[in-house]
């Protein structure tokens, strides 16, 4: 339990959908990341990280390397995303990299406590492939981006300074299906495991 009912409601909803939540506020974030990884993606492998402008944890690729994972960096640039060496990503190469990643990392634009959802954007500075192709997805979320209702979240979206992005995806739990005998199975096309690391805005 935290001091904030919104954060609690969001966390309870997200967890009820089989998601993982780890509160990284007021604690060592590196340790919190380590812990959330043990749930989401325990075996070291390639990690696709999309760094939008103002990415909350710039040290993250280094930390992943320290844990034995292989960070694949996609960093927003003036002309479009670049890799760790500052080279422009090419579409086919990024597709292939995303497809072989064991984990995707991206920042949530906002979240809704009532439904247990997180919105991710797809535009020049933000990517949705980390939330799509790898079998696990880690979302970094500032707690002040959690709204009570869907209406407030959509309100934020309509007031984005750059306009509504070409793609907005509201994620509510893992990729799932009930198509065989109506039995729930997770991880059909997208990630089977979804985690949120809660952050304090600095």
């Amino acid at each position: 339990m935290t001091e904030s009912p919104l954060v609690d409601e969001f966390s309870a909803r997200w967890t009820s959908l089989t998601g993982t939540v780890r509160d990284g506020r007021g604690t060592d974030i590196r340790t919190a990341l380590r812990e959330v990884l043990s749930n989401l993606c325990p075996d070291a492998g390639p990690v696709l990280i999309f760094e939008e402008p103002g990415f909350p944890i710039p040290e993250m690729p280094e930390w992943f390397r320290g844990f034995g994972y292989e960070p694949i960096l996609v960093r927003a640039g003036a002309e479009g995303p670049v890799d760790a060496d500052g080279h422009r990503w090419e579409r086919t190469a990024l597709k292939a990299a995303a497809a072989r990643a064991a984990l995707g990392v991206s920042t949530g634009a906002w979240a809704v406590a009532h439904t247990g959802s997180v919105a991710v954007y797809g535009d020049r500075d933000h990517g949705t492939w980390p939330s799509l192709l790898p079998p696990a997805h880690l979302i970094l979320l500032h707690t002040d981006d959690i709204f009570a209702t869907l209406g407030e979240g959509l309100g934020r979206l309509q007031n984005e300074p750059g306009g509504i992005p070409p793609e907005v995806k509201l994620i509510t739990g893992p990729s799932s299906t009930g198509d065989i005998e109506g039995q729930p199975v997770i991880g059909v096309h997208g990630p089977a495991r979804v985690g949120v690391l809660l952050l304090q805005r600095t």
Partner: protein
Amino acid sequence: MSTAPQVSEEREPWPTRRYRALQDGELRRTLERVLPRMAEGRVRAYEGDPEAEVRRLRARDRRREAVRNPGLLDRAMAAVEARGGRAARVRNGEEASAYLLEIARRRGATRVVKSKSMVTEELQLNRRLGEAGIEVRETDLGEYIIQLAGEQPSHILAPAIHRNRSQVKDVFLNAAAAFGVEAPASDDLDVLTAFARRELRADFLSADIGVTGGNFLVAETGTLILITNEGNADMVTTLPDVHVAIVGIEKVVESFDDLVDLLPIPAMNGVGRRLSSYTTMISGPRQPGQIEGPEEFHVLFVDNGRSKIRETPFEEVLTCIRCGACYNVCPVFRQVGGHAYGSVYGGPIGSALTPLLSSLRQAHDLPESLCTLCHACVEACPMDIDLPHHFVALREQAVREGLKPTGMSLTYRTWARWWESPGGYRRSIRLARLGQRLYERRGRLTGGPGLLGGWTKTRDMPPVARETFGEWWERREEGRHD
């Protein structure tokens, strides 16, 4: 205006379809297990969310206003174009496939991946594109299974609900042999799902064109809404270089604000969740510098019989959001499943949509024979569509248009005339008491003249009592006055 057939000309008669479905024990066991659970999920979801009913009523009103506003379509098309997309109107399957083939020709594209879309089933898009040499892969798990098996969807939410896991495994074994890939090792659900994930992943990454339907399209912003649980739609819309969304003209809603109430409706009512796993809003192709997403984004607005429903007493049928709630509660659907409807749209809503989109002549059996007028669908429907009311209207229309066999119309007309007055009713009872002696066996009526003979083949009919309640009452009252 020509429309694609919702039902094929060589469709079998209802008794044949009904018999086949009722003989399929596996199908009935699966329906019995799955449908009540989905229906209960809906009830629980509303119980757990006191505001949900208020939101639903607002959503319903916005949908009603939207289908009555033909001007929205032009606004939606302009908004799609303003954001760098292309918008076009197509009247039927022929025009939709011609549009797609033109894109394929221009780009040298040969491979299409598709996420679930009922409207493309209606347009028979896969067959049309296949005939032109374009390979179309269905990517929703249920659709993938039935595509491999060469079948039709049997439920709008769970198209392969008629198959159990071992039957799915058989389909995958055949597919693995045909593709020359490793077969699933067991009929464990995770194993089967992993097989589909692996095979479809390759299709997603290599496809040239992605085709989707659309749950809603916002006229104000040109935003396409796609709601899925599997995440296949997000593959289809962001990996290929071209995304073509094919949406019925009735899917247009007016403003972005409408989404607040509308987005939860499909999941709340279909399966009882506050939102599906993925609610994706697409407002145009990729931006300059953006890597993900398509270079070309097209929206095809499909009529295919929809505009002729506008401004008729059946108009509210167009507000349907295809949530599946009516399927889950329908006592007829729960027994026979979707294939017995013999049409693209099964279930209660299909029994109205099918004759309205195609013609009553082809499909009058649906509103007549597959509904008991129990009203369960009305209670479940988030849009409050009064389907039984429309079924009765369609039945009347079928009689007026002379679509019923003469013998049947004559019987009902005679029956109605006798029962119009108390005297006629009493005379008919006396007559029946005489006539039924020929057909009475062990206290039951078996056989009978005309229609009654067929009717009693599969049903028991009690004979008219020696003394009816009315007669007894009369006798008693007379006794009192004495």
